[in-house]
């Protein structure tokens, strides 16, 4: 019994049950397969999270984002800077850099992208940790203060996407949102 010392003192000489041996081999091969599949996805897959990261002081990052927003802020028909609920709408050039600022409790600014174009997304926080969760696509990435994470993203469909915070960041956590639009 499993609650008594093994009946055979030399238990390590006991034969292994055939079913056990078969299952160990299957489990091992399956583990090996899953291991190689992760590596393979770096070659065959399009969704491999970049690990490009820079250390940056939060104030510096905030300046970068503000400069970016000012430079690329969209204009309406009359040439006036475009805003939505007081937040600038920014149209970065295709293939260019996108800066997103996470802070208590918003993702700033609103970004407008072109479908099928590749962008270099920079994400960082100026205060606490936040979670960048793009919906309904469901891409989820952690955001740290002091670390600027650079991710390449190519939107594959058009529409209005929500960004919500999914790292608990205090009492306003459930109000922390952002917006990304993708147009043809």
């Amino acid at each position: 019994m499993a609650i008594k010392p093994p009946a055979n003192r030399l238990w390590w000489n006991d034969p292994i049950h055939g079913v056990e041996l078969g299952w160990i081999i299957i489990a091992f091969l399956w583990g090996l397969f899953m291991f190689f599949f992760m590596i393979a996805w770096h070659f065959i897959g399009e969704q491999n999270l970049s690990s490009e990261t820079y250390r940056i002081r939060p104030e510096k990052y905030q300046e970068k984002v503000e400069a970016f927003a000012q430079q690329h802020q969209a204009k309406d028909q009359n040439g006036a800077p475009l805003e939505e609920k007081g937040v600038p709408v920014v149209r970065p050039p295709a293939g260019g850099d996108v800066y997103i600022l996470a802070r208590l409790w918003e993702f700033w600014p609103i970004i407008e992208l072109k479908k099928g174009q590749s962008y270099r997304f920079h994400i960082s926080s100026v205060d606490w940790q936040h979670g960048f969760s793009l919906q309904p696509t469901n891409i989820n990435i952690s955001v740290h203060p002091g670390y600027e994470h650079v991710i390449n993203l190519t939107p594959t469909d058009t529409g209005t996407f929500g960004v919500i915070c999914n790292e608990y960041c205090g009492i306003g956590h459930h109000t922390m949102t952002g917006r990304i639009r993708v147009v043809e």
Partner: protein
Amino acid sequence: MTTVDVGAVGKAGIAVNYRTCRFTGLRIEANAETLIKVNAVAAVVFLALGGLMGLLVALTRWPAIQLLPAEWFYLVLTGHGANVLLFWIIFFEIAVLYFASAVLLGARLATPRIAWLAFGLMIAGALMANYAVLRGDSSVMFTSYPPMMASHWFYLALIIFAVGALLAVMVFFGTLVVAKEEKTYDGSVPLVTFGAITAGIIAVFTLASGAIILIPTWLWSIGVISQIDTLMYKVVWWGMGHSSQQINVSAHVAIWYAIGAMVLGAKPLSEKVSRTAFLTYILFLQLASAHHLLAEPGMSSSWRIVNTSYMMYLAVMGSMIHGLTVPGAIEAAQRRNGFDRGIFEWLTKAPWGNPAFSGMFMSLVLFGFVGGISGVVLGTEQLNVLMHNTLYVPGHFHGTVVAGTTLAFMAMTYLVVPLIFQRDIIWPGLARLQPFLFAIGAGGISLFMMGAGTLGVARRHWDISLTDAVHAFEYPPGAYMMMALNGIFAVLASIGGILFILIVVGSILRGPRLDGTNAKLTFPLHDASREAVSKYGSHATVKLPGTIVLVGIFFAAFVLYYFVNWKYLSDLWLFR
């Protein structure tokens, strides 16, 4: 239940008294018995408190009800995590360690005074943590990621609790040494004790990581240190947070074997395989803390791959092996007990009316199918981006730590009450029902939280309708349905939990005494005389068709679900 009383005085001047259990023949020492009792009772109290908080959380996340206001929600969620994951589980584990050392080896508990000190510190830490949380300035979740800061009481409480737990683990190791020196057993330690040793070793590693990260954090909270690096914190914190889950797995697997042995007379198919599987937990799982960091900046791909796969899959293999050897041992035992017809008679004629067995077996199934498979998917380098920090994560770990560990601990309690408290279980009808209610409820909340997470619903989030948000966004109706179903199954799980607590407390206080000579157990243990004279010789030659079918279904589900998630992943935006 007492038939023999041997009085002696240990070196420390504390009396050492043994009794022999009438039902199991185990030699039980009085100090060990008392300390098992107090730790188990403390565990149940914190389960009651934390479970109630879990219900409040689930009812708040049910959109049609949204019971608590936001501040209270975050406060209660912090309390829920701490009370159940730390206090309920670890108090119970200490009781399990004392049981697996002193009781199973027939030894005295080493240094009972230190065991009491450990208990005192753990109680002090747990109460202080609840005080800190209820003050309202420590709603930081039990992970307490900086730079969000809790009251310094919160960190200090966790440190005190951890020191207490570490002392208790030392008493466990001391007891092993005592048993060895006083030659209270013959040959190698039993498999269950071996599993407990695994848990103990991992516990030392875990508590050390905890100290390394919590002590500077506490110093930071009182202003001695000016800054804590957020990424470094997560790496070390998960060295504790993840490995402590390995303690749980080792402990509940040991309990599966123990219940199989005590209720059905199950022997391991082969000691070698089962013990090696426990060893893989020690050798490989600590490093899997990496899989909590797959969506963080600055972690290289090769670091992610090595730590999530080579290391993790060898440990996953350990669990997969137990997933075969535990039902295999039960099938072999049942066939020896005479239930040898067809593929599944051993299972259909198993003692489903005994809550220890039914709880144990459902814990095994749910841990494997719900907690295990989802854990591997979640821990896969690329797939993680699909569900990181969504409700999928709590869905996964309610499959491991609630439907798996908690259910197994509940099942074990139905044996601890008669054997250690020497009181029979009251309300046998309700006791029969209890594991099913809890298993269905816990399985349900796990699955529906996973479902909601797949639809993008965030964890630790008060309002999925985003009413007060500037850039509101509509979740699909399916997400609302998942949250409502989660609420309904949370109510079921809570009824199961409340019943458990009433039955256990009622039995301890009012259950029929079992120390008389004629007393019988309501839920009997294995009786070797019932074993049919069978054609089976050694376990190594038994045929196990039922187990092969069960494991085959498991493997098919695993492979299918794994690839479904790669399919989801390939539909995401391109990361280039």
